[in-house]
């Protein structure tokens, strides 16, 4: 069995198609750059130019040093799997299940995480601590979702 989102045959690397219609994230003042970055194929987050702390979700100031000079930085997209669950319940009529929800920890900073889907990986190969890399699912002209797939080709 494959996870719910799979790579489109012949598509450029990183492109995936969804098997269920996804609610859209709103573009809000401190998160718009994140979603637009994803749409451009980059994992961008705010970083404090004073102390280097990466802030996600975005805020107006750095919670560590309280500096207000924050700038988008592009992350490597490397992560490991902190936890996961296979969702079996359809949360709205017609939603395809099962699919894998992963909680991934990004390589750049301890505790910096994303809730995401693990894709392009058979269910039986999914394991906590497995190394992952980002891939993007395009939703519209403004937004793409960062999903994660195994680093090693399976």
């Amino acid at each position: 069995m494959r996870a719910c989102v799979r790579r489109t045959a012949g598509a450029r690397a990183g492109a995936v198609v969804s098997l269920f219609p996804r609610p859209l994230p709103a573009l809000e003042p401190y998160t718009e750059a994140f979603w637009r970055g994803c749409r451009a194929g980059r994992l961008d987050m705010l970083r404090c130019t004073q102390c280097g702390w990466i802030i996600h979700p975005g805020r107006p100031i750095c919670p560590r040093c309280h500096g207000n000079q924050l700038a988008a930085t592009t992350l490597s997209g490397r992560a490991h799997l902190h936890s996961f669950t296979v969702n079996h319940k359809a949360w709205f009529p017609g939603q395809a299940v099962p699919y894998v929800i992963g909680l991934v920890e990004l390589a750049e900073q301890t505790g910096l995480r994303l809730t995401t889907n693990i894709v392009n990986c058979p269910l039986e190969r999914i394991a906590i601590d497995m190394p992952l890399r980002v891939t993007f699912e395009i939703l519209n002209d403004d937004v793409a979702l960062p999903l994660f797939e195994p680093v090693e080709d399976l």
Partner: protein
Amino acid sequence: MSDKPERHAILSGVGQSAIGRRLFRTDLDLTCEAALAAIADAGLRPDDIDGIACYPGPIAAPSGFAGPGIYDVQESLGVDLRWHLSGAEGPAQISPIIHAALAVAGGLCRHALVYRTVTEATAAADTGRLGIGVGSHEIRGFGAFMIPFGAMSAANWLALYARRHMHEFGTTRRHLGLIATTARRHAKYNPKAIYREPMTMDDYLAARMISDPFCLYDCDAPADGSTAVIVSRADAARDLPHAAVRFEAFGTALRARPSWDQWGDITTMAARDAAQQMWSRTDLRPSDVDSAQLYDGFSFLTLAWIEALGFCGKGESGPFVDHGRIDLGGALPLNTWGGQLSGGRLHGFGFVAEAMRQLRGDCGERQVKDCEVVAVGVGGGPVAGCMLLTR
């Protein structure tokens, strides 16, 4: 701590409406029934009520979740108020109880009605249970980072916590099942419980998966029902028709990132911080607790609360709940009304009602012998509030 505010307030009355799966009654109707029952239980008349509080008040939420706001209840009861409050942010669903005690202790009011009402079963009658955000065009706030990924329920968010706990400590589905099957055994003795028929461990393990490791019986049962309590000044205790229930200590702390997925150690919850603060406000210790009423919106939450409150060491809650320790007659009778898993998702207040009834000796066949101290812990993930109650 000799003059702590907890000492200046008591729980003087408790009442519940009809509780059921699809009552097709309004939330305000259920709330009035519970409120009048609680007021009478405290030996009071509606005119004595001079404070009202509830969780969460009017917020954007799925149908059946929020219940009526305090102004509709004030209008229905026809009372004048000296203090009132509602809110969704705070130390979990018992936040308005804690704040009512502070208001009473501070002299703002004398008898506060505090309630929580849900009609989630009736709301889902036509559609089944839908995910959070379904039908929304755009998702705002923290949900923007979860719901588009199909993490559309707290079942998904907390399954991630449970799986990590299993990974680090060897906790098993059978341990989760002990929470569910024990609660079901207790619900047999609660006439108002939603599910009272026996459930074996095999039944539990064979149930359909929702979001693994959570199966259907790891998730609480949506219900219709209202629970109301009366928080009164401590000097009202002498006029009560029954024993007063006393506040020994509150726990309201929140020390890590207030986020479901950025919470630092997801084998713990905000329960850890609330519980630590609660114990810092009392000379009583975990070994003094006669019964625990611990939130079980999902079975795993109860395990996390058991660890948070120090009934066992970190990571040891799975083995701890085995061998009858949490049964009636065990060392720590747990969720003796059936919890939300079997008693119904009354969203926090069912635990408070049961704690009061156990301390007053009103529980009949499910009564814990010589029950003098009860721990109540409510909430999951980054949301937690707790209270130690005594008689």
